[in-house]
C-alpha cells in the first residue's frame, strides 16, 4: 500500500439514515459479549475483591473494607513500587524505540522477497515464549556468559549484567522489540519516499530530511509502539522475576508474590486495579498525543 493512497483515501460515503445500524450492532455484539464476559466481568470481580477483608493467614472474608486501599496509599513502599514500575517501563520503552526504529525504517523501505525474509526474522522471536527467550538472556548475561567471557578474554572487568535492573531492562527491551517494530511499521503509512526525494532535491542534508520529514511523518507509529510497549512492560512479570534476581520490585512481580506466595488476594487485586489505572493514563496520553500529531 503506498503512503499517498492512505492520505488520499476518499471520505466514506454518507450512510443513509436508519439503514446500516442493525448490521453494525450485529457485528459488534460478539466482541462486546466476549469482552463483557472475558474482561469486564473479571475486572469488576477484581475491583470487588480489592475491598474484601483479609486475615494474616490469607483467609478472605466477604466483608467490605477500605483497609487494603488505605495501606497502598499510606505505605511509601507502594508509592515507590508505582514510581519504579513507571520509570523502568518508560526507560525500556525508550530503549526499545531507539533499537527498533532503524530496523522498522529499513523494513519499510525494503521490498520483495528481501522484505518478506526480514519480516519473518522480526516476527520469529514471537513464536518462542518469553520464558525461553529470557533463559536465553541468562546464558548471555550470566557471570560466565557470552558477554562477560568476551570481556574477560579482552582483559576487561566483568560486568554485573543480570539479577538487577540492568538485566530486566536488557531482557525486556529485546522481548518487546518485535511489537515495537510491527507497531512502527503499521504507523509508517504516511511516509512517502517522494516527499523525501523532494526535500533532497531542494538541497536538504540527510539529517534535516530525517528531522523535518521522516520523524514528523512517523510520529503516529512511534506513539502507537510506545503505548503498546509501555503497557506490555508494566504488566510483564516473568522476565523481571527471572532476570531481576529478587532485587527489582515492580508492580507486576509484587502482584504475583501477593497472589501466589503471601496469599493476600485483596492486595493483589488492589495493585492490579492500580495497573489498570496506569494503563488508562497511558491511553489518555496516547490519544492526546495522536490528536496533537494528526
Amino acid at each position, binding site marked *: 500500500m503506498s503512503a499517498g493512497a492512505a492520505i488520499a483515501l476518499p471520505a466514506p460515503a454518507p450512510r443513509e439514515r436508519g439503514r446500516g445500524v442493525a448490521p453494525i450492532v450485529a457485528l459488534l455484539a460478539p466482541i462486546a459479549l466476549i469482552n463483557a464476559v472475558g474482561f469486564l466481568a473479571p475486572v469488576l470481580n477484581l475491583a470487588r475483591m480489592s475491598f474484601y477483608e483479609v486475615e*494474616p493467614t490469607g483467609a478472605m472474608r466477604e466483608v467490605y473494607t477500605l483497609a487494603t486501599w488505605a495501606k497502598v496509599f499510606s505505605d511509601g513502599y507502594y508509592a515507590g513500587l508505582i514510581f519504579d514500575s513507571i520509570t523502568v517501563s518508560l526507560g525500556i520503552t525508550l530503549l526499545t524505540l531507539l533499537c527498533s526504529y532503524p530496523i522498522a525504517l529499513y523494513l519499510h523501505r525494503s521490498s520483495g522477497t528481501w522484505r518478506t525474509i526480514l519480516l519473518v526474522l522480526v516476527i520469529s522471536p514471537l513464536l518462542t515464549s518469553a520464558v525461553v527467550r529470557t533463559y536465553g538472556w541468562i546464558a548471555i548475561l550470566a*557471570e560466565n556468559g557470552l558477554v562477560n567471557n568476551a570481556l574477560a578474554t579482552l582483559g576487561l572487568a566483568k560486568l554485573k549484567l543480570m539479577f538487577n535492573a540492568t538485566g530486566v531492562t536488557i531482557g525486556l527491551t529485546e522481548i518487546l522489540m518485535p511489537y515495537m517494530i510491527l507497531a512502527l511499521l503499521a504507523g509508517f503509512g504516511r511516509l512517502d519516499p517522494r516527499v523525501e526525494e523532494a526535500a533532497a532535491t531542494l538541497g536538504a542534508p540527510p539529517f534535516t530530511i530525517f528531522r523535518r520529514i521522516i520523524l514528523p511523518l512517523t510520529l503516529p507509529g512511534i506513539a502507537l509502539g510506545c503505548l503498546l510497549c509501555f503497557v506490555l512492560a508494566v504488566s510483564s512479570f516473568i522476565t523481571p*522475576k527471572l532476570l531481576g534476581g529478587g532485587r527489582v520490585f515492580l508492580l507486576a512481580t509484587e502482584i504475583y508474590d501477593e497472589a501466589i*506466595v*503471601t496469599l493476600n488476594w485483596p492486595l493483589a487485586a488492589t495493585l492490579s486495579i492500580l495497573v489498570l489505572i496506569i494503563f488508562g493514563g497511558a491511553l489518555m496520553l496516547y490519544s492526546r498525543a495522536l490528536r496533537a500529531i494528526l
Partner: protein
Amino acid sequence: MKTSVSFAIAVVLAGLSAPAAFAQQQTVTVMGYSGLFQERYAKAVVEPFMKANPGIKVEYFPMPNSAQMLGNLRAQKAAPQADVVIMDVSVSKAATDEKLLTKIDEKNVPNVADLYPNARIPDVDGVGVTFDNLVMLYNGEAVKDAPKSWMDLAKPEFKGKVAIPGMPDIQGLSLVLIMDKARGGTDYLKSVEKGIAALGEIAPNVQTWEPKPEVYPVIISGQAVIGAGWNARAQVNADASGGKLKAVLPEEGSVFQINTISLVANGPGKDAGAKFANYALSAEAQKAFTESMFYAPTNAKAQISDAAIARTAVKSMNKVIPVDWIALAKVRDPIMEQWRRKVIPLSR
C-alpha cells in the same frame, strides 16, 4: 444415585468415554503439587491405593503451588470438583477459615491416631502428611570443604555464588528464623532482629534471591555453588545429578515445612476421599513415600529403611526448631518489611 452423580462428574471432568467401567466405580480427585511430587506420589501412594481398592479410581489433579489450589477451592466452593487436597499448612489454615474443608480426625480418618503430635495442627482442618526441612545445598565439585554452618554462606569465597529463595518465600523466612534462634533470639513472634542481621551479613554474597526454575538446578549447573532449599527435593536432585548436588543440615539447625492433607467440604466422592486420606496417612503409604522422596513421615508407626531415614531430618530432631506457622502469619508483614529494608539493599 450417588454412583450416578460421581459417574456424571467423572465423565464431565475427564471427558472420558468408557462409561461401562465407571458405572460401579467411585472416583476420588486428589489435588496436589505437580512435577516431581506428582510423579513420585503417584507411584508410591496413588497406584498402591488403587490396587488395594479396585472400586476406587484416583484422579490426580496437579497444581504448581498451594495458592493455586486455594484459588481452585475458592472458585469451586459452590460445586467442588476435588475431594482431597495436599497443600502447605498455612494455606490449609486459610482454607479452613474460609470453611472450604471438612475436619479430619480419628472418626473419619482412623490413621490420624498414629500421627506425631506436631502433625495435628490446632485450628486447621487438615493434618500433616509430609514434613520437609530447610537444608544447605552446595555443588560438590565447586565446593571442596563441606560447609557446616549457615554462616558459611557469608564466606568471602562465595561472593556472588549464593542462591537463596528469598522472602516472601518461606525458605527465606525460615532462614531468618533459624539464624535468629542461633544468635540468641527467644521469640520470633516478637522480634527477628538478630536473624535479619545475620541475613544482612549473607546478603552481599547473594547472586539471586529468585533462583529459577528452582534452586537445585541453579546449583547443579554451577551458576551458583551454594544456597538453601528443601530437603526432599534436594535429595532427589542429588541422586539425579549423580551426587553433584549435596545437602547438609547445618549446625544451627533447621525448621519443618508441613504439607497437610485435607478433605474438601462437599467433595463429589466423599467417603472414598476419606478412605484415600486414611491410606495416605497409613504407615505403609508414609513408608513408601519417604523411601521414594525423602519427606519425613508424619505417621509415628511408619517403619522406614535406615538408608531413607538417614536422608530425612528424623534422626536430627533436636536440630529442628519448632515453628508455629499459623501464629507466624500474623507477623509476616513486618518481617517482610525488615527484609526489604535491611537485607535486600545489602545485596545490591
